[in-house]
């Protein structure tokens, strides 16, 4: 980070740089807790699949691979564009930062529309929500329902994190428009970037668990 000793800072820090680095450290630690949060879900998912493989596969084959794959591309593109915005503010290009954030925001929004407006809508239409009207019957029904419990819990939590991310990216846009960032101070841009990429990382685990593993070779 560029020299920022002239910038204001809270009274417990020795300098603005000291404060900025601490904020980033805090964000990393927060992401570690998030890792354990989703980690518990992934572990339970894999453990349950281990005992109900055929049922999980039967469930997974009902998922929409096309939307899942398109969404993966959208999400990765969104993070890439956001990172470009971070690089732009490091050299002081505020206009490009705002443009990048706006594109990243719209890509994230497109993901949510596809995921919940289209894919979930189709899932409910096909009676894939677990319960008495579940589409798959017979001996594989139990395992397939377990799969869809994990599917709905996992995608809902990921979606909530996406919504949180969109709020944060919007907040960055507002602050950038108020001219609050400079090459000497862009800690919130970097911190939100870490979070936005973390949401990708969660999806990169969810994507194969949902769409790929059950389809097999």
């Amino acid at each position: 980070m560029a020299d920022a000793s002239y910038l204001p800072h809270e009274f417990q820090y020795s300098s603005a740089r000291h404060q900025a680095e601490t904020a980033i450290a805090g964000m990393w630690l927060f992401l570690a807790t998030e890792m354990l949060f989703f980690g518990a879900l992934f572990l339970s998912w894999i453990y349950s699949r281990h005992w109900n493989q055929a049922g999980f596969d039967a469930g997974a084959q009902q998922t929409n691979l096309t939307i899942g794959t398109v969404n993966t591309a959208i999400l990765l593109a969104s993070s890439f564009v956001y990172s470009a915005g971070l690089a732009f503010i490091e050299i002081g290009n505020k206009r490009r930062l705002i443009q990048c954030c706006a594109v990243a925001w719209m890509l994230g929004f497109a993901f949510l529309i596809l995921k919940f407006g289209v894919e979930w809508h189709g899932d409910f239409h096909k009676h894939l929500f677990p319960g008495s009207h579940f589409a798959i019957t017979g001996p594989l029904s139990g395992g397939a329902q377990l799969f869809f419990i994990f599917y709905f819990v996992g995608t809902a939590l990921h979606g909530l994190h996406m919504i949180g991310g969109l709020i944060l990216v919007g907040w960055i846009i507002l602050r950038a428009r108020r001219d609050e960032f400079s090459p000497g101070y862009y800690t919130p841009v970097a911190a939100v970037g870490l979070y936005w990429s973390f949401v990708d990382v969660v999806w990169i685990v969810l994507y194969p668990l949902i769409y790929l593993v059950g389809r097999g070779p």
Partner: protein
Amino acid sequence: MSAVVVEAGAVEGSYLTDGVTLRSWLLTTDHKRIALLYLGSITLFFFVGGTAAALIRYNLITPQGMIASAETYNRLFTVHGVVMVWFFLIPAVPVTLGNFIVPLMLGARDLAFPKLNLASWYLFVVAGVVVLCSLFAGGADTGWTFYTPLSSSYARGHVVLTVVGIFIAGFSSIATGLNFIVTIHRLRAPGMTWYRMPVFLWSLYATSVILVLATPVLAMTLLLLGFERIFGIGVFDPALGGDPLLFQHLFWFYSHPAVYVMILPGFGVISEIIPAFSRKRIFGYKFIVWCSVAIAVISFLVWGHHMFVAGTALYSALVFSILSYMVAVPSAIKVFNWIGTMHKGFILFDAPMLYALGFIGLFTIGGLTGLFLAALGADVHLTQTYFVVAHFHYVMVGGMVSAFFAGLHYWWPKITGRIYPEMWGRAGALIIFIGFNLTFFPQFILGYLGMPRRYHSYPPEFEVLNVLSSAGATILAAGYLLPLAYLTWSLFRGERASANPWRATGLEWMTPSPPPTVNFVSTPVVTEGPYAYPAPEIVQHHG
């Protein structure tokens, strides 16, 4: 981001007089004020949980039970467990004494993220209100462990509401842990190297690691349980091929480390008090601090010992048994080190030291009886009996609550600027020690004789020991009300405290009592390790 620059010498009064409106308290970001907000909240919950405990002991005076319905009894011990675990024991030392003392000990002006600190208190309050709502709506009858399928399919009452409260409280814990870790890494005063940090800081660091890494797992577990409860279908449901035991694995992956969240800060408090009142350097400093870290690491690997009789594989049970023995080693090293510190020291029997000595004795009993339970063969006999209840109450109440009171008395002059009446302090420590032993020692015998826990009635041959235990509980209750009375009295009438009434070491004693809002007018520079008490020969001659 706001610029707050405090000029040296511009400070008058203390953090208590810096703003006296309600707003200045509820919107404060001062770690010292937030510590007091927390102190008020956890005291309330301590007495809510304590009232439930009193009713439990009242019920068990007669074999058929003094309270008519077993259902009511089940709800009482659930409330007692939930409130005491999540709303007193886990937060108690970190959010009150830790919040107040950590920045002072580090030579810092505040925690790294003061707004997050305030947010954690609000989360705690919301969580507490939700749990109290569920309590007044009738509570739940699952016990604090919420085992499936009881909690998911069969339990009556407000399981979801209780779980939501615990879920929110978890985020409050995470925020506190995160704040402490980052603060200890980033805000140490110049010259404050890791090995110059007081043991209390190391203990809270280890505690925080557990808080940030284990609590999210509980959050996910409770979320999956809530899903199952709401939709009537879930991942712990054996009818679908799900595994109810998975819930126990996930729950104890959090809850066993959480046991160390409850006791590690206590170790830290005791490690401050023993040297201060023995007027002697702490014995084996590096061993003590690394034992804290070792306990935090091993605590993540012992959860399986809660499931020895739940149908886990024998091989895994053996491994968990051995690992559970291992966690006793660093705990025992600490006990030896405290005794080594007192050896040939100039011991002063002030109230904090009496509580600390009580802690060492009771924790040792609690720890050693834990080894009985870690042994596979003995556990099959003792599990689900009052032996387990007595064991963890010796650690949690005899150990942790004593340590909390020890720390509260030790830092009370610093926090409030007032001295409490010393004789009442000593009397309180003694009454709690006697009342505690009378309450819980009979439960070891009851458990050994086979009395199961969590039943509202029992065979008549257990009556004498149960009456003894209930009698002890009344003494214990009196012992806990006593500090509430004389500490409150001292707030208004207590003698003014000097900056360092105990003549103890540590940066927190170098600033006035109570400290100014900025803690230190000029940032201190640390030039030596902690506990730099003079050699024992010198102390003997000069007092």
